[in-house]
């Protein structure tokens, strides 16, 4: 074959590097730079999709070793099914985002150096693809760190804002601390394997003593958990994602976080081959907590990008719930059931990439059109930006896991695997644990829906709340195309989940030894089944068909029946007063009931300042200030850093400037050493 996997991979990498460099060197002509940078990224993304699908369908891994070695370590890429799946996901999203970026980058022309943006953007994709394609831990860490570095630089791309700088700093430091744990895990594996290649790791990993395995497991959980943003390691996420340009946030949130999932799955399933039951329970618990906390904090946000970032925390939690239950089943040796959980998790990886990407692009479009990310200043955008509105709505429905969109299918599978925990006769505790986790997932889903009713409703419906929103215009075609692509995929994978699930078969086959045939119904393309019991099926496409058909019937019936049907446009009833945008319900007020219900979690604070003309009847002005307590920052992070800085400041006293003291140090050292040597 002319186009082998190897050459395709080289093409992908080559395109990305060329695109980045071309974009960088044409920075004096911004338009050209943008065109070059994103065109190459697009081509690379297309090739990446081809490559990923090729491996997934043909099933033969792509192996590529670089012609030079570093420190005796062969530098190799190895794209197995798991890598291929993530590669496809990354490429898919990057394709949409790159199309979107043609128009979006125009926002930065004249303001910032778009050549740098093009360079970093391509490098970013390159680092992620390289990461999932890595065949050895050295390569993995190399690309992992490169990815962190590049994404940091992208986060601080708009660095004139001090908040952005701070966000970038917190991000890069937390990531780095997470990386520390990954290093530890890999070094422990290296000690056993004597080599850094993942194949050697897998050989050695399966036969490690339990305590070392557990240590490695905990290290990767913390390490990858930091990147994935599991609670309480998530605090960088809502700071960093909003700071980056929106196309980058889409990629960061949509796929960069997933590289952590990739690493976790790779190490826990492929290298360690699963472990004791409590591993799975831990992952499940972390997932549940992250999902809930993520969505709750998301509800309290009215910065659209921060809101979306918190939803990433939530969705990572959902992914982990699937993976956690798979781990539990694996621990009990039930691979058939484990497949369901793993499929659920991995499918959600894809789905989250699509709809979160879509939503971030939507947020980017809104910012592009209105210059604000504060949803309290928006409103009425659906009329002004109908396409963006439609796409955002689709994204909102998908992320709320509503049928017939893709989010529903993966969440359905997650529900199934959780219920199976209860009925799979895994021991009495799981009878309670499984359904309760399921119920909490339901709560998460419902809160997510509430959050997106807020996000969509406040931004797109009713009247604009500011002049910026009033004057918004629909975004350029390229941006709409990028969003449309993702929106279509959200629907497509929602109604034809079989396509994805059958592709995932190769992946589960390689990780668990069992394909996903059991998750596919009899009608291969129509159904998703769980291994739970007979008839536990969902068939999204027929459901959609039914909805469409009945909707048409209902529509026609309403048109036909009755005398009424004339429509008169009039003002909104407002107790007889003229309605102004100031009277509209705001995002803050929308989320207030939830804030009050969960006040133990949020610890809301409010200050009301009233300025009276005549106390206590006539007020001149009322100032309302509400906030919720950032618990994790206040309890964990701030005290730790403050202690550390205090400690460092104290230690600085050692270098007091006195030469006599310095000589004293030498004196003491010498005396101590002399005594030591005696």
């Amino acid at each position, binding site marked *: 074959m002319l186009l082998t996997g190897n050459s395709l991979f080289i093409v992908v990498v080559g395109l990305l590097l060329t695109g980045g460099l071309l974009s960088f060197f044409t920075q004096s002509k911004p338009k050209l730079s943008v065109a070059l940078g994103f065109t190459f990224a697009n081509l690379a993304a297309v090739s990446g999709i081809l490559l990923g699908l090729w491996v997934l369908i043909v099933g033969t891994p792509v192996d590529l070793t670089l012609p*030079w070695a570093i420190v005796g370590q062969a530098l190799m890429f190895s794209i197995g099914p798991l890598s291929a799946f993530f590669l496809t996901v990354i490429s898919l999203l990057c394709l949409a985002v790159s199309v979107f970026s043609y128009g979006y980058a125009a926002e930065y022309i004249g303001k910032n150096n778009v050549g740098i943006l093009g360079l970093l953007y391509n490098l970013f994709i390159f680092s992620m693809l390289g990461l999932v394609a890595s065949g050895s831990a050295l390569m993995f860490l190399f690309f992992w760190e490169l990815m962190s570095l590049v994404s940091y630089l992208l986060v601080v791309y708009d660095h004139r804002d001090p908040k952005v700088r701070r966000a970038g700093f917190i991000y890069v430091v937390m990531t780095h601390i997470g990386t520390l744990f990954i290093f530890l895990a890999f070094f422990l594996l290296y000690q056993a394997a004597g080599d850094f290649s993942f194949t050697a790791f897998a050989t050695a990993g399966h036969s490690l003593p339990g305590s070392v395995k557990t240590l490695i497991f905990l290290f990767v959980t913390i390490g990858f958990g930091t990147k994935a943003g599991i609670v309480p390691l998530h605090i960088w996420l809502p700071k960093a994602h909003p700071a980056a340009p929106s196309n980058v946030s889409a990629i960061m949130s949509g796929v960069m976080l997933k590289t952590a999932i990739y690493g976790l799955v790779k190490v826990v399933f492929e290298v360690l081959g699963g472990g004791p039951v409590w591993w799975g329970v831990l992952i499940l618990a972390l997932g549940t907590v992250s999902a809930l906390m993520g969505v709750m904090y998301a509800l309290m946000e009215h910065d659209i990008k921060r809101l979306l970032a918190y939803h990433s925390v939530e969705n990572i939690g959902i992914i982990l719930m699937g993976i956690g239950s798979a781990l539990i089943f694996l621990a009990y040796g039930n691979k058939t059931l484990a497949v369901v959980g793993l499929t659920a998790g991995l499918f959600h990886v894809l789905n989250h990439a699509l709809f979160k990407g879509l939503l971030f692009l939507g947020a980017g479009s809104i910012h592009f059109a209105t210059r604000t990310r504060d949803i309290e200043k928006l409103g009425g955008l659906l009329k002004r930006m109908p396409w963006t509105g439609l796409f955002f709505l689709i994204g909102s429905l998908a992320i709320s896991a509503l049928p017939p969109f893709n989010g529903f299918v993966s969440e359905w599978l997650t529900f199934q695997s959780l219920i199976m925990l209860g009925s799979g006769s895994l021991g009495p505790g799981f009878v309670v644990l499984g359904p309760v986790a399921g119920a909490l997932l339901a709560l998460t889903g419902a809160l997510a829906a509430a959050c997106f009713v807020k996000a969509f409703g406040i931004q797109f419906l009713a009247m604009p709340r500011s002049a910026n929103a009033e004057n918004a215009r629909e975004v350029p075609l390229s941006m709409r195309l990028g969003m449309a692509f993702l929106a279509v995929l959200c629907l497509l994978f929602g109604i034809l989940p079989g396509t994805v699930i059958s592709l995932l078969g190769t992946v589960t086959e390689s990780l668990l030894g069992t394909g996903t045939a059991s998750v596919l119904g009899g009608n291969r393309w129509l159904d998703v089944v769980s291994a739970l019991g007979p008839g536990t099926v969902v068939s999204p496409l027929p459901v959609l068909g039914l909805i469409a058909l009945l909707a048409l019937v209902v529509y026609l019936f309403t048109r036909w029946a009755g005398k009424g049907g004339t429509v008169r446009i009039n003002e909104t009833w407002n107790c007889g007063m003229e309605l102004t945008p100031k009277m509209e319900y705001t995002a803050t007020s929308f989320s207030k009931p939830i804030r009050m219900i969960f006040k133990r979690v949020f610890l809301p604070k409010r200050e009301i300042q009233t300025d009276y003309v005549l106390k206590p009847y006539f007020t001149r002005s009322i100032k309302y200030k509400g906030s919720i307590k950032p618990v994790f920052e206040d309890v964990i992070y701030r005290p730790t850093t403050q202690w550390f800085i205090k400690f460092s400041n104290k230690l600085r006293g050692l270098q007091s400037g006195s030469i006599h003291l310095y000589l004293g140090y030498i004196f003491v050292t010498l005396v101590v050493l002399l005594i030591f*040597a005696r």
Partner: protein
Amino acid sequence: MPLLLLSLPPVIAVLMLIVNKRKIVTVLNVLGSLSIFVTGILVARRVFTTGPVQEWGQVIYIDALGAFIIGLISIVGLLGALYSISYTSHEVDSGKVPEGRLKWYYFWFYIFIFTMLAVVMANNLGIMWVAVEGTTLASALLVGYYDKHSSLEAAWKYIIICTVGIIFALFGIILLYVAAVPILGEGSSTLDWNNLVRVSQQMDPKLLKLAFIFILVGFGTKVGFAPMHTWLPDAHSQAPSPVSAVLSGVLLNCALYAILRVHLVVGKAVGSGFSSDLLLIFGLLSVGVSLPFIIVQHDLKRLLAYSSVEHMGIIATAIGIGGKLGLYGAFLHMLNHSLTKSTLFFVAGNVTQKYHTKNIGRIKGVIKAMPISGPALLLGTFAIAGVPPFNIFISEFTILSSGFAQGKYLPSGLLLVFVTLVFAGMVFAMSKMALGSPPGRVKYGEPSRWSAVMVLIPLVMISVLGIYIPGFIDNILGQVVAVMGGGR
């Protein structure tokens, strides 16, 4: 050839005093540094291709280890000398330093290079000691070059502390001599390293232990091992930036080289555990002590100086960890640190010349103000903090993997934690300077085109070395490791 290498710097230094015009000084500097570079590389190449070189009787002895350091001196010396051109002329033009002092700058610079070369090439440990002391004396005046309060203070501390240290080292060498005399007899050849290392197993281990302690404390002061490192941030921050680069980049390595020479002798006699463990302890202590100073640092160049303490600590730890891979990593790290630190000191030079301050809090938006130094500052910081695609990542990775592979969890783990926290400190400070909007008083542009180019050269080198280690470097490091007893 080695003799030529050794005689070139003093000749150039003296010539510097003779000429008077700035242009001629510059030309002489370029020619001189290039010739030293070429000769140095040729000497090193000869060693690597044909084995250890002895010349002038037994006075000069260069093996792979020495050749490696000679290579470092050549490269960093060249970079420093070339960067000095734009740096010093800017200082003269802006009236900070009278033009007459320029030739003294170069005089001491080349004397400094000479003393360092002498350290490496001397076979006789006594002569090596003299040369090490010579480096202190030569560079002390470079540290005090600005004749400001702070630079005088730094120079004074530098010379006093290092001299005190070095006296201990001398005592250690005498003890070594005492131990060697019963076997080798009296005479100057007794202190020749190649003789000592040959008979090391027959020497009195107790005496050797004592000797090593004195030498470790003595030369360790010069290396910047905590807690004897106190002179280092002062000196490095007060010296002119090119000199800081040479101080950090090679002088510390030269001092470490001196310790390693003795380490090799002592290690064979006492069993490698003793001296390796001491190196490990001092290495980790240095990394740990530098950490808080990096976290809460207000001075750009002091920050870099503490980072040097940290990196010398890493190298020492790596040697202490040992093993083929550990030693390989150690010397790779030596190379990487020299290049990266040079980049950063050059950047710091440019930045201070632009912003007229070293205070981190007063420097902002370098990326916007300086098209090359700005990104270089950011990238260099990540490089020095061990992030790919830069070279230090590779060497730190190698060192740590060696540590874990040998089951030395505690030191390796500690090292990893320290390095991670240092990363936070470095990035915090550097991003504060690099990002944001520059203050209005700062005009766009580099101090000069030349100074920008001089930042780019090492930056490119560290980037390339981060993804590709050429075969010859691999070969060189293999030979160095062999000298260090790590096997091939």
